[in-house]
């Protein structure tokens, strides 16, 4: 599987993947552990559609952000897959060994 240019491409794909993960997981951390737990009391001073903002994040908002994050991930990964020419084919992938 490894001619040097392909190896380099796989390496770059993996780095692009890791940087996407770092961005998405920081948002994941901020809405869940941040807005809903660590900063919840401070955010509660703001009002959002009948809710205290911190409470809304803890009981509604964080879950909605989680859903959005996964779809951004699938969309961005699909773009990375074709950019680096590593997309999976439609037929069933063969076993590795």
């Amino acid at each position: 599987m490894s001619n040097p240019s392909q190896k380099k491409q796989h390496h770059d794909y993996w780095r692009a993947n890791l940087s996407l993960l770092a961005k998405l997981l920081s948002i994941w951390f901020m809405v869940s552990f941040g807005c809903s737990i660590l900063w919840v009391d401070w955010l509660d001073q703001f009002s959002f559609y009948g809710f205290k903002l911190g409470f809304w994040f803890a009981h509604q908002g964080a879950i909605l952000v989680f859903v959005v994050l996964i779809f951004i991930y699938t969309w961005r990964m699909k773009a990375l897959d074709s950019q680096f020419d590593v997309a999976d084919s439609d037929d069933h992938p063969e076993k590795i060994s």
Partner: protein
Amino acid sequence: MSTQALTYLLVGLSFALYIGIAIWSRASSTKDFYIAGGGIHPVANGMATAADWMSAASFISMAGIISFIGRDGSVYLLGWTGGYVLLALLLAPYLRKFGRFTIPDFIGERYYSQTARMVAVLCLIFVSFTYVAGQMRGVGIVFSRFLEVEVETGVIIGMAVVFMYAVLGGMKGITYTQVAQYCVLIFAYMVPAIFISLMITDNPIPQLGFGAEVNDGSQQSVLQKLDGVLTELGFDRYTEGSKSTIDVFAITAALMFGTAGLPHVLVRFFTVPKVSDARLSAGYALVFIAILYTTAPAVAAFARLNLIDTVDNTPYAEAPAWFRQWEDTGLVAWQDKNADGRMQYRAGSALSPTKPAFTGARGELGERLLSNAPTDSANEVYIDRDIIVLANPEIAGLPGWVIALVAAGGVAAALSTAAGLLLVISSAISHDLLKQTLMPQISEQQELLAARLAAAVAVCIAGLFGIYPPAFVAQVVAFAFGLAAASLFPALLLGIFSTSVNREGAIAGMLSGLTFTFAYIVYFKFAMPQLNSAEHWLWGISPEGIGALGMLLNFAIAILVSHFSAPPPNDVQELIENIRIPASK
């Protein structure tokens, strides 16, 4: 038709549907049995994952727990959804690319060790069995409450149904029944939620009604009114927390990372055709889960408000019909401490001990008398948390078919999760223990037979746990997450994202994470329950949240031990390279 007859009809129809699907989708190969042939559409897999995931606890108990603890209930809401982000971004696509049958398969190959495989089997069986026992009990309880049969009979009926489709159909049968079960359970959950939202706020969408004004002309929002009413009665405010921040943080983390490490959820991502489908499928799964998980906190707030309105200071003689009906099942009780004939609902425990012990006799007003000693609290009403979902349709004055629907939904939630858990247990035994370790010479047909036998035995053991629940079952179910977070999650994550963590590191990490978490839980929950309070906990972290620390310990030990021993061999390096790339080149 009476509610009782309707309930029998709806539950019976749903069973006929599940068994029909099981016969239609029989498994003919080990690939069918373990991973449904690997050709499940991502949307179908998302639905099946959601049903697999949402257990009797999510369906029946979660809204009730939130209802009584208010904002701190976020640990469950966040923990049991946030884990899917980790699952989708960090594990599912890579495990799908690896593309075998079980989670111990991955651990065994990546860490080139049968010992590692067996440690993973051990973690898997421990986590899954504690979880499945609770599900069978849940089936029994739903049966006994709605159909008025004994819990034992309920468990046996549930066992027979799961037996049919898990043993016959394996993963293939389970997947399609779970799709049907998801539809039943979400419909059953949403209908009463929409009605109660309309009743209290005039808004049909519970997620919006949750923030809207109460329609009693007071111009207060639901949460303002709830906070006001609760403080008047001596409770904590609904929108404020009472757990310490560090504990909320740790419990949420343990539930999130545990979710991402649960074998019966992970294995679902082996069933889709390709890597990009695994990513997408995790997204759909979370959409389907989020529908229930954003509704639950709204139901919790509406029901609490409604409960106080209809119960507090109401003369028992005028108590709503549902109150008496659920009193008969022991889920609510009233002790007239001040002898005024009215039900006072206040903060604090009404009874000592807290669970009602009925004498069998009735008082003048027809209430069931209790042998519990009264407490100092002015509270006279005992309310079981499960009442919030179970009695919701009656509290909201909905017709009998909605009540029947909730019963069918509760059974669907419990059965779908039980089946998923039984499948990972049986495949760990037939595939990892027999085929890969003890008896590698057996043929595929023999392995399939072994898988069916293992599933059958697992169903029976789970049923026994349901009928004779060991005292610890209810308490340990929540700990399955902590154990999964502390044992399997780090080994899986490092197996994909690190090229240097090796056999020695992974085994040492899994064992130390598991041992530490298990010992901490046993110490505080069973050995020294009198010490189970914040001042004795390590850094104020409760046994529910300790899995988060166990996980960090696992990571630290795995990395440290790997640093001082030989790196993984070349073929493992190639395996890691391979799973990181979606293309099968």
